[in-house]
């Protein structure tokens, strides 16, 4: 295939002036540089700066002590991390956060696989509709979704009012503010990505394999368990990974659909930062959250890579 850059150079005499000539030769670099600059400046720097702030000392009191709001610039201390690991409350939070991440990953993957599988088997019309429904939450506000949840399932929500009105129950039935509602909320938020990933992997399976298995006498259950499922496992692992990463970072669902015992590290980051105005502590917790993800996810990814390498022989 002819590269346009080559075609261009033959059609256009090279210019002598250095900078423009360099630009002509390095067009790819020039095109790529805006995104590189953007990511460095507004993703990498903020994360590095966050780490720096987590090593600053607290202003104390209302957050405006010593004339410094939020954190004391120029100070270096490990106090925030020490406090985190000494405090039972924070340790409990970290443990629960990881548990919620694992639970979310498994539940989301299970539900998403079921939906993706039906999308895979459905006719073109139903396929389009289901796909649209599945990605709808991605284009909806998190808060709108959670509000809808409360409107339907809350203590004063529609379902409870209906139950009370019909006399089926005397007291409102508690359906939200528990672990179940938190996980359901998280499922809704992560499902669009998981369904897309799993559906894409399922659709990439060669249909001839299906037919071959069936021709050899396998029933639909065996075709699924011995052909479809094993071949779709890469998608399942990606879904588990996504579910875990976003489940560990869960903020809105635990806060709005949970209770104080179901709060996560992300909720604590918000409370330290926006309520106590203690940015340094908030930064330390945010950094620990990120470290947890890296420590747990990297070995998992390495495992997958090894497995893939093994499969290739």
């Amino acid at each position: 295939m002819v590269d346009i850059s080559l075609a261009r150079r033959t059609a256009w005499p090279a210019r002598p002036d250095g900078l423009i000539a360099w630009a002509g030769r390095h067009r790819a670099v020039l095109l790529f540089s805006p995104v590189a600059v953007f990511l460095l400046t507004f993703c990498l720097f903020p994360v590095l700066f966050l780490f720096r702030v987590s090593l600053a000392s607290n202003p104390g009191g209302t957050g405006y002590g010593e004339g410094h709001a939020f954190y004391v610039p120029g100070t270096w201390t490990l106090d925030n991390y020490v406090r985190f690991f000494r405090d039972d409350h924070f340790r409990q939070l970290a443990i629960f956060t990881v548990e919620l991440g694992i639970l979310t990953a498994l539940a989301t993957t299970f539900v998403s696989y079921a939906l993706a599988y039906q999308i895979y088997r459905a006719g073109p019309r139903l396929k389009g509709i289901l796909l649209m429904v599945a990605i709808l939450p991605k284009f909806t506000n998190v808060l709108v979704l959670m509000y809808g949840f409360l409107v339907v399932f809350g203590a004063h929500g529609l379902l409870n009012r209906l139950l009370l009105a019909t006399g089926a129950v005397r007291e409102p039935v508690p359906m939200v503010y528990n672990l179940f509602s938190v996980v359901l909320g998280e499922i809704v938020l992560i499902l669009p990505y998981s369904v897309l990933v799993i559906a894409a992997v399922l659709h990439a399976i060669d249909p001839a394999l299906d037919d071959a298995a069936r021709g050899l006498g396998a029933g639909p259950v065996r075709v699924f368990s011995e052909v479809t499922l094993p071949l779709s496992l890469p998608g399942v692992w990606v879904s588990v990974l996504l579910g875990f990463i976003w489940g560990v970072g869960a903020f809105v669902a635990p806060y709005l659909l949970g209770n104080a015992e179901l709060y996560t590290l992300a909720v604590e980051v918000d409370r330290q930062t926006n309520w106590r105005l203690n940015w340094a502590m908030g930064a330390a917790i945010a950094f620990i959250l990120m470290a947890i993800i890296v420590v747990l996810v990297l070995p998992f990814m390495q495992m997958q890579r090894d497995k893939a390498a093994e499969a290739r022989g």
Partner: protein
Amino acid sequence: MAAALARAGWLGLVLLNTLTVGLLLIPLVMSLAVSVSPSEFIALPTDAVSLRWYAQFFGDPRWLSALVNTLLVGGLTVAISCPVGLLAAVAFTRYHLKWRAAASTAIIFPLFVPSVVLGLGSLTFHRAVGIWGTPISLALAHSLWAVPLVFIVLKSTLGGVDRSVEEAAAGLGATPLRVFWEVTLPLVAAGVFVGVLFAFIISVNEFIMSLFLSTPRTRTLPVAIWPQIRYLLTPIVAAASSVIIVITLAILAIAARLVNMRRLVELR
């Protein structure tokens, strides 16, 4: 026996998926329904429909300023993320890049960093460089999510363009810039437009980073809804939510007319 098992399994699957679809749709539909109820409380509009909550929403300067901020930040996010994402996508599809895989990972990396980390990181950094409290600050944070999505959409669109058309134009003596401007860009216009819409939707709906970055002057709709949602379950929140839903659905409807959604997510 096996056939019965298969049928039972499929039935269970369909049942589970029906519940899932209900879980995805019911909250949205109910938010919309409650917003046109005349009742003081959360209720379905059984005998009358009322726009009182919308009247209250559009009559309150605080909600209005949140709406204006939301649209402004959305526009800025588009202005930042689309050129950046487009140029990166062109670099990927038209040139040989060293470190291709690493570069691609770097672009989608922000999607895998918890929003609270990006939010608080941006807050500390934006405050240090002096842009905290401006709409630009929010738009830059939203672009961390918008750039990867614009990049993914445009990479697949640009990859689908017939290269021989570009080569023909170049062969006839057009400069690369002219080839891009007069041949490639018109061919991918629909994709670019979808990228613009996605970036806007991402921004309008983004909440967690906005919560950290917004100040009373730059408060967006989701941030304005936030304190109301847990304790005051009044239908005004439903009205505010519905405004967001309507903006999003309108944009999605436009996008769906322009491109085949199924092709976009690469399913056959």
